[in-house]
């Protein structure tokens, strides 16, 4: 039996059979719905409202009685019995239009070496892409003038799962791998078309696209099944991908154009990190430096022109706003810094808009302020009666920043786990090579936490090593910068290959030293205060 389903507010229709769940139907119809769990019914994010028609659905703890009465169902667990009209509420929609395109600063970091016009063998216009697990950023680059147009969106694969593991599992299902590939390619095409329209460029005149993404994303761009990455012995199908043709991969530039991806180092250190190293020129640095990418996975590279070692810490998405009750990406209305004095709270939001959530930089700022004002103790637990703004929320204690927006006890726990993973990753990497933090000449930080990353507060939190502030450099999205450099210069692309070939990967999951270090760093700023002398002084005051 077939039914027609109409999705609102997109007004998109599709005919499906009664064995197709509404989530799958929505994806087929081109409607993006959130689904962290990839349709397993365990995340509760794909709620939709059935306006007219009948569905067969199963009981879910995520749908309250009140919601049920209003017609809410989980899209992934509902099947049509008649023709339907389904409304996708704001909270379930993957926001496409309003994403993180804020200021050039995120994309063109200051102080990076200017790209020398190498012998670029390509034509007049090219495309550089950063494929993140959460977001996709596309750069249209004029190869002569370097003129730019940039567009970003949430990675459309979010509908198949929020993290790479869920997507790898999805890739194992029938047709799963093709769908991952297709949705990503569609997303990139859409962004390219928007850019091209704005700059009056014909996509047909574009002959090259360079992509930087983590190993899983690179696989899905090329249509390779990434599912082996999560299985012992955790090896990708390929680290170095051959040049692919646009026609074959479905990317809508000139069909004879080429698609190149920056090579990966290992299953969990991908081309985005290699691009980051190219962007900050760590591989040419005379002095020792460390590069930290605070993305979903907190990858770290340490070294100089003589050696490079790297690791990946499972930091989780909290610095990108994931896994935090009111967390969000760095976009308009995100709280990015905050100060507390007594019961008074003052904060700044991005673009000075009405606050709608908290971005990574804001989360760091808030927790540090809570610690310095004695509202949380050094283990991150709330101190009862320490502030008027500390109240019982739905399930636990929450610190209220506005009437609505709060930070919860479990948010703080999440952040401590993440910062602990990143810090101990750095610590282990530096110590393994026989060095100390004080020997570092630079700490380079990349990621989409927002421009207002407060280094001082990040040190107090214990996320970054206690070094003089002038040693830190925040370079925003280094992955897309690196991809752009490799697009403009074959020389840079060759450097990327060399970096990927020579960088040593250290697996932290089997490292005893890391585990020991990790429990020590699950404290504010750290169990061992001697590692944080300046923070010790502040705390003693």
């Amino acid at each position, binding site marked *: 039996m077939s039914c027609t389903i109409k999705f609102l507010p997109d007004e998109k229709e599709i005919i499906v059979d009664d064995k197709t769940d509404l989530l799958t139907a929505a994806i087929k119809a081109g409607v993006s719905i959130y689904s962290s769990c990839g349709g397993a019914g365990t995340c509760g994010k794909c709620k939709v409202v059935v306006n007219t028609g009948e569905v067969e659905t199963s009981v879910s703890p995520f749908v309250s009685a009140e919601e049920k009465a209003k017609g809410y169902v989980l899209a992934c667990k509902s099947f049509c019995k008649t023709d339907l009209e389904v409304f996708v509420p704001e909270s379930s929609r993957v926001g496409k239009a309003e994403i993180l395109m804020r200021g050039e600063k995120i994309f063109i970091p200051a102080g990076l070496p200017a790209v020398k016009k190498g012998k670029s063998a390509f034509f007049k216009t090219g495309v550089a892409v950063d494929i993140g697990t959460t977001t996709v950023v596309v750069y249209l680059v004029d190869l002569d003038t370097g003129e730019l147009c940039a567009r970003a969106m949430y990675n459309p694969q979010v509908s198949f799962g929020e993290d790479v593991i869920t997507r790898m599992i999805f890739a194992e299902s029938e047709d799963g791998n093709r769908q991952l590939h297709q949705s990503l390619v569609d997303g990139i095409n859409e962004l390219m078309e928007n850019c091209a329209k704005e700059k009056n460029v014909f996509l047909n005149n574009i002959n090259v696209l360079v992509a930087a993404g983590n190993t899983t994303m690179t696989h899905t761009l090329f249509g390779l099944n990434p599912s082996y990455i999560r299985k012992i012995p955790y090896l990708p199908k390929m680290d170095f991908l051959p040049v692919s043709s646009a026609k074959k991969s479905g990317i809508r530039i000139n069909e004879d154009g080429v698609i190149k991806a920056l090579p990966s180092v290992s299953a969990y250190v991908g081309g985005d990190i290699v691009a980051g190293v190219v962007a900050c020129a760590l591989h040419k640095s005379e002095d020792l430096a460390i590069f930290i990418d605070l993305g979903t996975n907190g990858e770290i590279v340490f070294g100089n022109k003589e050696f490079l070692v790297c690791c990946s810490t499972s930091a989780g998405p909290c610095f990108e706003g994931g896994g935090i009750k009111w967390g969000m990406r760095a976009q308009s209305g995100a709280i990015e810094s905050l100060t507390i004095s007594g019961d008074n709270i003052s904060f700044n939001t991005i673009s000075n808009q009405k606050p709608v959530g908290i971005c990574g930089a804001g989360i760091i700022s808030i927790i540090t302020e809570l610690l310095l004002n004695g509202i949380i103790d*050094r*283990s991150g637990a709330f101190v009862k009666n320490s502030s008027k703004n500390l109240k019982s929320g739905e399930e636990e204690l929450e610190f209220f920043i506005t009437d609505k927006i709060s930070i919860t006890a479990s948010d703080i726990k999440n952040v401590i786990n993440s910062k602990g993973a990143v810090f101990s990753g750095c610590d282990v990497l530096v110590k393994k090579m026989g060095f100390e933090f004080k020997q570092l000449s630079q700490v380079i930080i990349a990621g989409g936490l927002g421009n207002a990353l407060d280094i001082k507060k990040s040190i107090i939190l214990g996320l970054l090593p206690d070094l003089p502030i002038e040693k830190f450099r925040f370079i925003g999205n280094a992955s897309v910068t690196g991809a752009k450099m490799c697009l403009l210069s074959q020389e840079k692309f060759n450097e990327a290959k060399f970096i990927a070939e020579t960088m040593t990967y250290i697996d932290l999951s089997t490292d005893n030293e890391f585990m020991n270090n990790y429990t020590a760093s699950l404290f504010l700023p750290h169990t061992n205060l001697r590692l944080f002398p300046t923070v010790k002084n502040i705390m003693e005051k």
Partner: protein
Amino acid sequence: MEPAIEKWSGKVYELTIGATKESGGSRSKKVKIGGMSALPFLSFEGTIPNPPVIAMEVWDVEPPDWTDVLKNEYGNVLNDPAQWAKKCEQMGCDLICLRLESVNPDGKNTSAADAAKTVKNVLSATTLPLLIIGCGNSEKDSSIITEISEAAKGENCLLGIATKENYKTYAAAALSGGHSVIAETPLDINLEKQLNILMSDMGFSPERIVIHPTTGGLGYGFEYCYSIIERTRLAALSGDKMMSQPIITFVGQETWKTKECQADETDMPAWGSLKERGILWEITTSVGYIQSGCDIIVVNHPKTVKEMKNYINGLMVR
């Protein structure tokens, strides 16, 4: 050739348990633990002012799961904590460890006032310094500890067992009653240190804390416990003030529940006499923990007390 001898920069905090008449209590003696600037019994490295001490457990209800090997030693005092404590004193231990099992909500669920009465009875029955621990239910224990602390005020007891969940109540109770606190964490040196920091951050003196690292019996992860205790002690001797507390282990509690101490001779003929097996197991475990750096061991069998006294004395003389 000069022998290479380790010189340590730090030392373990010295803690006194019990108060005599002069210091406002009613105990016949004070027991001092810790204070060493050397690894266990390596007196050539530094000074070891106090030997490890032995506490015996006294329950305020008859222990339901004890084997006959233990029960037979105590006879009819098992229903009477005051008499039981007196008997332990005669058996030669240094401290009494009173376990207030009766407050357990899954058991008798007695009130704080009842428990406080027991504490007073035991205090008047024995002259030894006291360790007082709850039933292990974190919520219930924190609800009674203030009253317990008040009941034993001035006797300078060691109260337990504080965890990350209830340490604030314990620290406040101990402060008001003038007692010290046992701080328990899962077996991990960083967690130990974190709890000590949290307690000192709220104004509780780090010198009044005893670390309970949560240990296992011999054959049940003992090696790991040994190395964690050893690392704790090494941190203390290297000058880490938040790791410089004395250490306690509940050897009896971990020993007598093992199958080696419970299995019947007819089931396990190759294991030898049941009566000797349990005692040997407790003694061997005790020796291991004393060697790793424990300052208080809490045991159940009188023979263990006797053997361990001899063993410790022998090592201290050398």
